[in-house]
């Protein structure tokens, strides 16, 4: 099973440890996917900012990105960032860890983004 070659993943959290930890969880089942993270602010504080998110987007090897996040301010920053990048961002308002884990396992199995999305549907949350 070769990993999805088109689509990567970006994780955005208020806390650096959270994305570092989720990356470890994900790497166990998805060693080959393009995964980058923005945890905390650019200055390393708890919070999120567009600059830090943009960096994670730029660093990702793929142009087509599934994005998962923890709380609402990350969502607003993501929407803001959409206008600042040429990459295509797909933002999922779903359970953060569970959604990212599921998508990562499927990306690793070579599944297409469009075919992953139905599996994320039941994890929807108003964020």
């Amino acid at each position, binding site marked *: 099973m070769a990993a999805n070659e088109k689509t990567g993943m970006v994780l955005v959290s208020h806390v650096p440890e959270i994305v570092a930890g989720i990356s470890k969880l994900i790497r166990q089942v998805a060693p080959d996917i393009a995964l980058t993270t923005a945890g905390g*602010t*650019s*200055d390393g*504080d*708890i*919070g*999120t*900012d*567009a*600059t830090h998110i943009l960096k994670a987007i730029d660093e990702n090897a793929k142009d087509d990105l599934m994005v998962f996040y923890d*709380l*609402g*301010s990350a969502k*607003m*920053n993501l*929407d*803001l960032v959409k206008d600042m990048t040429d990459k295509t961002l797909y933002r999922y308002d779903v359970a953060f860890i569970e959604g990212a884990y599921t998508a990562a396992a499927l990306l690793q199995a070579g599944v297409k983004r469009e075919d992953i999305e139905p599996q994320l549907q039941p994890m929807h949350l108003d964020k």
Partner: protein
Amino acid sequence: MNVEQVEKWMTLYQAEVEKNKDYLSQLDTDIGDGDHGNNMARGMTAVADGLEKDKPADLAHAFQNIAMSLISKVGGAAGPLYGTAFLEMAKAAKSGGTDIPNLLQVAADGVAKRGGAKVGDKTMVDVWEPAAKDAQAGQLNDANIDKLVDATKPLRALKGRASYLGERSIGHLDPGAVSTGMLLKTLLQATA
């Protein structure tokens, strides 16, 4: 509005935020994560630095400059919200819409769109939207601004961190509404 007025506005607002930093963070402690004062102070320091470093040639550039500082330095929901307000004002200024009522209206609409909040959700939108209307009616003054800010107190939050508290958010001022009130009051002072 002109560049000088914007610079004066930002200087006054930075001082106001600095003075009320602990108060804003305390309001946010009651129904949020307690960082709103620090977020705004950090953001306004960046705004001052940004305007210093890169003297804006015109109004659009001034707003753009401010927006980028807020977006990259506030570090909380207020960052993309105020950042969007100034981005929208930059766009309006670029196309010549530099009168205050028009600027406030595009800013208010930008904030509402960014956060997906409506008036009554107990957010800064509760101040932005009606204040823009007040400005159009020539009624934007300190008393009316205070009224809008105070009106967030009895509301139940439906957006932002305070919404997690459900009915426990009732009886507290919304921190972002308070900082927006300060922003509007210093705008009045700077353009008086």
